[in-house]
């Protein structure tokens, strides 16, 4: 079922609004595709594409934290550096070990040093050829064209409409019901109008047999058929209602569309946490969600954590990304032009995705630090196919205790569990219990009390 192509907030909307929003999505997607087609023409490629690529790679690996090709950052813009140094000194020696070169007393080196806050560049283990490549890249630098946003592409995926039927059936039922009501009332209107016409023409009214009566007569004549059909419909509706009741208030799992609220910043989890092989950054989840190891809350990172990287990375891979990064700057009050904090801050108002009821206590530290679970076991492939975060698991009690029933406790090397085992082995009662536990050759969370009410409800 592909119901989750609609963001869940749309499910509650009137039908018309939904259709129009979807068509807007299609419109954007088309526009984006057109832009993409024309983008190739807009910029010329550098002459030596290989050297450019080598330079780009080296630049990103060694220089990107402090330099930009075309703008000043912590260090000066690198475009034109070779020209600036031409005749004034040895740029290669400067790059390789700036502090040593400074001591030679080169006047231009000292001028640059003074201009850039007297901070030295880290010595770089680069060959002259590599420095050439980097400078070539910088001199010929052309910003990449924004690619169409991933959201647009998804919306443009064809075939979404026909697999939608499953989640649309309540709406179809409502429409059918409406049509039925309209039909019946229309027929009533028609017969009274007929009668009025006949009256005006001086004829007597039609014999008083309404549609209802006709249907009733017909049903009476086909008792068995109607009963079977009626029974079938009753059972069908009951079963459907029963199923639907089970997922009331559930916003994850296989049954329903995942909850994926609109966020103030379209933070792309896959880009930040995904694998390097797939071109992503592979940042450890807990670099940002640092509470997961020590608190009940994994926590939404404070904006200053974003700035650890984004102080240097001000541009996204797409222009849309740059817009989102600018939102962080607005939150922390970072003046990217002048490279300083303004002091004006505005906290980001995220929308909470995973909501547990108040009477359920969940602790991340227990599961991450002690249970040694991977984040993905509950949060799904957040690093592979989730741009904006969504609720993957249903977070129902059944889902929780299912896992508690099957997962074994990570006891090895933990003194706490050594003591638990020692106590089990000490008494006859404990021995009997342990034997029961080990029938499936592991000690599950449930067996150590993971199914008890007061483990989560207090």
């Amino acid at each position, binding site marked *: 079922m592909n119901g989750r192509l609609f963001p*869940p*907030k749309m499910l*509650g909307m009137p039908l018309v609004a939904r259709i129009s929003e979807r068509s807007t999505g299609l419109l954007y997607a088309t526009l984006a595709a057109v832009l993409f087609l024309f983008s190739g023409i807009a910029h010329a490629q550098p002459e030596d594409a290989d050297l450019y690529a080598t330079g780009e790679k080296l630049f990103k690996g060694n220089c990107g934290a402090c330099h930009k090709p075309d703008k000043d950052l912590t260090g000066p813009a690198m475009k034109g550096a070779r020209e600036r140094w031409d005749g004034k000194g040895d740029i290669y020696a400067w790059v390789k070990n700036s502090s040593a070169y400074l001591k030679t007393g080169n006047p231009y080196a000292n001028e640059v040093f003074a201009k850039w806050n007297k901070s030295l560049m880290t010595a770089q283990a680069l060959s002259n050829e590599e420095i050439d490549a980097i400078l070539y890249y910088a001199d010929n630098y052309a910003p990449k064209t924004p690619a169409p946003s991933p959201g647009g592409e998804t919306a443009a995926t064809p075939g979404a409409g026909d697999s939608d039927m499953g989640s649309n059936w309540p709406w179809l039922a409502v429409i059918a019901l409406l049509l039925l009501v309209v039909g019946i009332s229309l027929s009533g209107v028609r017969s009274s109008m007929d009668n009025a016409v006949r009256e005006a023409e001086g004829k007597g009214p039609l014999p008083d047999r309404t549609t209802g009566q006709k249907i009733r007569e017909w049903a009476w004549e086909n008792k068995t058929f109607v009963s079977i059909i009626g029974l079938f419909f009753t059972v069908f509706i009951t079963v459907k209602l029963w199923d639907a009741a089970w997922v*009331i*208030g559930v*916003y994850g799992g296989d049954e329903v569309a995942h*909850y994926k609220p609109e966020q103030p910043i379209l933070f792309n989890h896959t880009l930040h946490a995904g694998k390097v092989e797939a071109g992503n950054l592979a940042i450890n989840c807990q670099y940002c969600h*640092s*509470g997961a190891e*020590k*608190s*009940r*809350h994994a*926590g*939404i*990172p*404070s*904006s*200053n954590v974003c700035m650890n990287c984004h102080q240097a990375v001000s541009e996204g891979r797409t222009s849309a990304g740059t817009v989102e990064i600018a939102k962080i700057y607005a*939150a*922390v*009050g970072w003046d990217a032009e002048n490279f300083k904090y303004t002091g004006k*801050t*505005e*906290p980001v*108002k*995220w*929308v*909470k995705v995973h*909501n547990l*009821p*108040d*009477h359920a*206590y969940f*602790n991340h*530290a*227990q599961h991450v*630090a*002690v249970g040694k679970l991977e984040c993905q076991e509950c949060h799904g492939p957040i690093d592979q196919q989730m741009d904006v975060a969504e609720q993957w698991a249903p977070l129902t009690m059944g889902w929780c205790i299912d896992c508690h029933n099957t997962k074994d406790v990570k006891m090895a*090397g*933990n*003194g*706490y569990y050594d*003591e*638990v085992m020692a*106590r*089990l082995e*000490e*008494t006859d*009662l*404990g021995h*009997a219990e342990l034997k029961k536990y080990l029938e499936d050759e592991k000690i599950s969370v449930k067996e*150590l*009390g993971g199914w*008890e*009410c*007061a*483990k989560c*409800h*207090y």
Partner: protein
Amino acid sequence: MSSTKRYWKDLGELHQQPAVIKGRENEFPQDLAIDQVLGDASFNGASTGRRDFLKFLGFGLGAATLAACETPVIKSIPYVNKPEDITPGVANWYASTFYDGEDLASILVKTREGRPIHIKGNPRFGLNRNPALPKGSINARINSSVLSLYDNERLKEPMMKGTEGMAAAKWSDADIAIGKGLAAAAGKRIVILTNTLASSSSVAAIEQLRTKHPTVEHVQMDTISYNGVTNANLKSFGKRVFPSYDLTKADVVVSVDADFLSNWGNTTESTWQYASRRQPGKGMNRHFQFEARMSLSGANADVRVPMKVSELPQVILALHAHISGSDSGADAAVMKATEHAAKALMAAKGRSVVLAGSNNEGVQVLVNSINSMLGNYGSTIDLEGHSYLRQGDDAAIAQLVKEMDAGTVGALLIAGVNPAYSLPNAEQFKAGLAKVPLTVSFSGYADETASLCNWICPDHHYLESWNDFMPKAGHYTLAQPVISPLFSTRQWQESLLRWSGSYTAYYSFIRENWQRNMAAHGGLTEMFADTWNQAVHDGVYEPAGMSFPASGVTFAGDVNAAMGMAKAAKAGEGEFELALYTTEAIGSGQHANNPWLQEMPDPLTKITWDNYVCMAPADIERMGLNMYLGEQAPASVVTVKAGDREITLPVVPTPGQRVGTIAIALGYGRGANGEKVGKAACVTDHNGVFNPVGQNAYPLTGTADGAVNYDVLNVSVTATGETYPVAITQTHLTDMDRHSVVKETNLATFLGGDKRAYNHPHELAVHEDVNGDGVINALDKKPVAEFDLWEEHPVEGVGHRWGLSIDLNGCIGCGACITACNSENNISVVGKDEVRRSREMHWLRLDRYYSSATTKESAKQDGLGKIDMYLKMEVPEESPTVVFMPVMCQHCNHAPCETVCPVAATTHSNEGLNQMAYNRCIGTRYCANNCPYKVRRFNWFNYVSEQFSEVNPAWDDLGRMVLNPDVTVRARGVIEKCSMCVQQIQAGKLEAKQAGTPVQDGAIETACSAACGTGAIVFGDLNDKKSKVLGLATSDRSYHMLEEIGVKPNVNYLVKVRNTEEAAAHHA
């Protein structure tokens, strides 16, 4: 020996009054609260037909279902810059100091996401620290004080008196106007009236103001005066101070009307010191108490002698005569009554202490003389390292009031005290106040005094403030803010600095003051930053080489003059003598606005939300007043007249009250003139009138010999004929009248070493030859522990098995555990009317049992016949003995509640806990009916709703901030009960798992055990062989409440042992 006494909870039960005890056998004496719901006036005139009702029902159901489908959007807002030491979801603890002018305690404040939510004693530092446990000793007022931070009636900005009363003002305007006012007062007295500050930085701030305004004077006032003691010390030893007492060194404690366990002196020290000597054994102290009213100290005494108020000075005279050997002119009867106490004192010279609660200088000089003769100075009493608290000067205040009236006071600045409410001559004070050109109050509320001032410059709550204190020489404590100020308030010392022309923040001022003082004392100034940071971290600073070794002092008082003053107290003409006292919960009245404290039952009378006249049952009977109180049995109302002053209050029979005396609590009746003194100080009463809680009894105090006098020797009591409902808890929270509820013995029997003599296990006769005498008869018995109806829970020796051990000897009945439990577990305050209907929600209650000293054994000794014996066992209310017993869910391994729950909402955990899943409970209340300990509470209403907004702090957005985010707030229709602080257990286990170590004994504490500074409540793992709780649970004194019903609780009690003379002699 243990079980032949007869115990009772109240007179209705003792005398089996059918009208009063009717319905007590029921867990829920009332039917469903339908009448209250339908009684809602808005239902009148509604005309909803059956079909409409069904339509609404159908629509409601549909709407609810649809509403459930929509995901609520919950915003989650992280910090922009997260402070390094805050992790959302992890509590931070900060050391600070509580001081309100009465109690001083080093505390730890628990904050969550920046909100203080819980307070406990500092277990590592401070004078209130019991080093043996180690735990910080605090009382209910201290741990409840966190709630007052979130009181919506606190002033949110400065106030200025205008033509139409008080109006909000700006700080800048206040500073300008008060600056001008102070300048205009040049030449006249500028008086800063405060409570005892004991704070060098506060004094320095006053000094700084004096540099600008040379006529600034500082007058200190204690709401409850100790001038008798301090003046006597001036006369006797040349030092006007309150001494330090060390009860850990006292083998014999003789207290004459000094309630040192509840309110007299530095109770945060004396409670743990006293309790440390109550462990049964050779080192157990003996405690004599002479008093008119049954006080908390009297209830704990080994020998309690009820005395008339006018006889109490005679007791001191008599003790003096006994010990000095010279006649003091004391009454012959009193001489005889004090003989045993004097003998005990003489036998423990240098290891005893005599305390007197009297505020009469003469009496206190005699007490000093007695203690000096006994050689107690330098051992149990310390005048060198004396207390710096209680420096208030009644004479200076009297002089001030006189001068205010004469118009020689140019400005009066008031901080920390409420003289318009608490002075004996409050009316004169108010009249004088109106004549002072500039009056400024620093009160956080527009209270009785503040609302009469020109300006109110509200001080921070103490949890928002920096402060330093020196409670004793060489012992410094620091208070640090644990939250940014909630409102536009300013610390009063900072206001003084501002008006002296300095813009220093008070924090910098304290720090600089410390640095200066330490330099002056040759401290290491270059290391100051480290020392300071450590002091802030610990909350306490005790510099090396600044201890004052206690030494003997020479008594130089005039005994004859003192005897003359003591003898001046003569029985009055009136039929009654009145003793004014302060209660454990409310104290002197500044915490009267705290709903947790108002709902905390008084330790002795078990009454909530009121003050009342305590009267001996015999007098009640004589006057024909209502003796038996209950939900449907209100108290009689009487008018007490003392000279031209009178007060009208309900009268409550209090066993132990000396016949011919009455007692009334101070500290009630706040906000009587409509002042906004805080949320719970005034509530809507049973007649629907918004009234103060209780009546103000301060106007009944007087002045004698230059000190405030709390004994009124000539009062008359007349019944008004009206009745008044009082909310008493222990008439409905009952226990079966069986001997296995309370067990007690005396020290000699305990030292005899035969456990069966004082802690006999319950046995059942069995049909097998147990004793091997060849005959199967009634002598063949087995302990009840060997019988079982249920299958064993696998908790013995497996995993954890959490348990509590409660020492009836350690429990002094202070009730700090109750309020700590309220704070930790989000327990609803329900208000007086609900308490009266036995619907209070406390998970932990403190049962108080009275009994006669007469036992079957003592009756035999006295040669009483059987009938006489039983009669005597039932007529003991003149001086009953008292047992306090904290009762919470006993977490039975064979819990009767679990088997009757139809929906399995209450189940047993494999760690021995009786669990309660609120979201599963459907409210049948079968469990509560089946609980033998009556510890399950039912949510009759949504207590977090507008209906209870007057009393329940969780109703408004501000009060809600005190809630513990780890504990669910329960809704209407579910049962709740003690969870043994399962959230703490889970957190402690997680901490151990993360550290990779077993749970260390003592690492996890329940709220009650952490709050218990006397160490009576001990929590731990019964499966941990090295744990303290296992040691106690398997000790000879350990027993289970109602052991014979075989429910196998995880909570055990330790038999109470009294150090009574008679029985000791008998066994010796």
